[in-house]
């Protein structure tokens, strides 16, 4: 179930794209699943349908979603869409951020590693990218 909040620095269209990407990454949405219609989602969230259309167009252009003529939008088979260098850069950045957040909390290293492994296991159903 997608949620949006107003007053967030992220525009509503971005909140929708982020939300759908997260649903796909966590396996809540799997390839072949249908998305709500533009009008339906706009109604559900009480927002302008053009905003939903914009978010869907972006996700389709980036390969997350796939349009089937007359049937609407579906979750596409997910492939890795970043270059190796960009993947490595983002990975490094995320690890840096994480380490600086937890370093001051004084947990034993193994506790931290176990916890991360447990979190990651929620996403294990996802086919390897």
């Amino acid at each position, binding site marked *: 179930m997608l949620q949006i909040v107003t*007053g967030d*620095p992220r525009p509503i269209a971005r909140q929708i794209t982020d939300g759908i990407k997260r649903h796909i990454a966590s396996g809540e949405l799997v390839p072949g699943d249908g998305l709500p219609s533009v009008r339906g989602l706009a*109604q559900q969230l*009480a927002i302008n349908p*053009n905003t939903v259309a914009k978010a869907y167009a972006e996700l389709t252009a980036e390969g997350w979603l796939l349009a089937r003529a007359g049937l609407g939008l579906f979750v596409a088979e997910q492939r890795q869409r970043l270059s190796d260098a960009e993947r490595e850069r983002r990975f490094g950045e995320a690890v840096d951020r994480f380490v600086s957040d937890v370093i001051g909390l004084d947990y034993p290293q193994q506790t931290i590693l176990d916890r991360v492994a447990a979190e990651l296991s929620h996403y294990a159903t996802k086919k390897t990218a």
Partner: protein
Amino acid sequence: MSDYAIDTKELCLFYKDKPALDNLTLRLPRGGIHAFVGANGAGKSSLFRVLLGFEPATTGSARILGHDCRRLTPALRERIGFVNEEHTLPAWMRVRDLKGMQRRQYPHWNDARYDEVLGHFNVDPGQRIGGLSRGERAGLNLAVALAQRPELLILDEPTLGLDVVAKRAFLEAMLEVAQVDGGNTIVYCSHQMDEIERAADNLVILERGRMRYMSGPDDFCDRIRLWVAAFPAKVPEVRQLPGVLQVQVIDQSTHVVVFDQDEGFGTRLKLLGAQSVHAMPLGLDRAVNAFLAHGHARPAAMPAATPLAA
């Protein structure tokens, strides 16, 4: 047919010596939801009065749906809906009589929509309008305006004084009208940024009778950034830097809201002695606030950038 729902050129309106509209040139394309924001006295209501032919402009021209606002015919008025902020309706009439009258006058009248919008309010058809609460009167007024299905609907702060449920009901009805009657134009003025963020295709910022800005709300937010800088020594004069809208000093950090500035702005802050700088996006509410605060009237003793209460 004109491509513009509203088209004004160098429009001026004076009350005595005070300009309410100051060379306002504004072209709103047909279709979609256009949200007007501005400080109190920015000229929104004055503009609507000129557009609807209630008041002649001092100078300049104004056209609505391609027609001169000084000569609106009944046939044209039928295509324009207006909801004023006071929700003025004949107090002596009963609700069902008002509906009957409106239905006779507007050929595109839609009963289902009237019932749907009014269904969110506790209004009985036999009640006199004078006996309704402000919120109920607003609901009735909106139901009537939306059921007329006008080509151009002008709403002047329609949700003022409505409770949260009624506000949401109104918003849903307005979005549905914009969607179902595609190509129709809604012009909507509000101080509720959350509504604008949800609903608007286009954002128009008015200030002191002039148009200051127009684009989609997301594009507007994209052009506004908050830079937070830490100056270890004395805080330098950053207000003179290009694009600065608002400056606040909060504890040890200086918060600067800027318009249309790239990474170069961070470099400038560092050159002025900032130890650390970082930029972040702002939501619509704060972005509009900073934009308007820049030119907002303030007591003479108050500096341009006062810290806001959180």
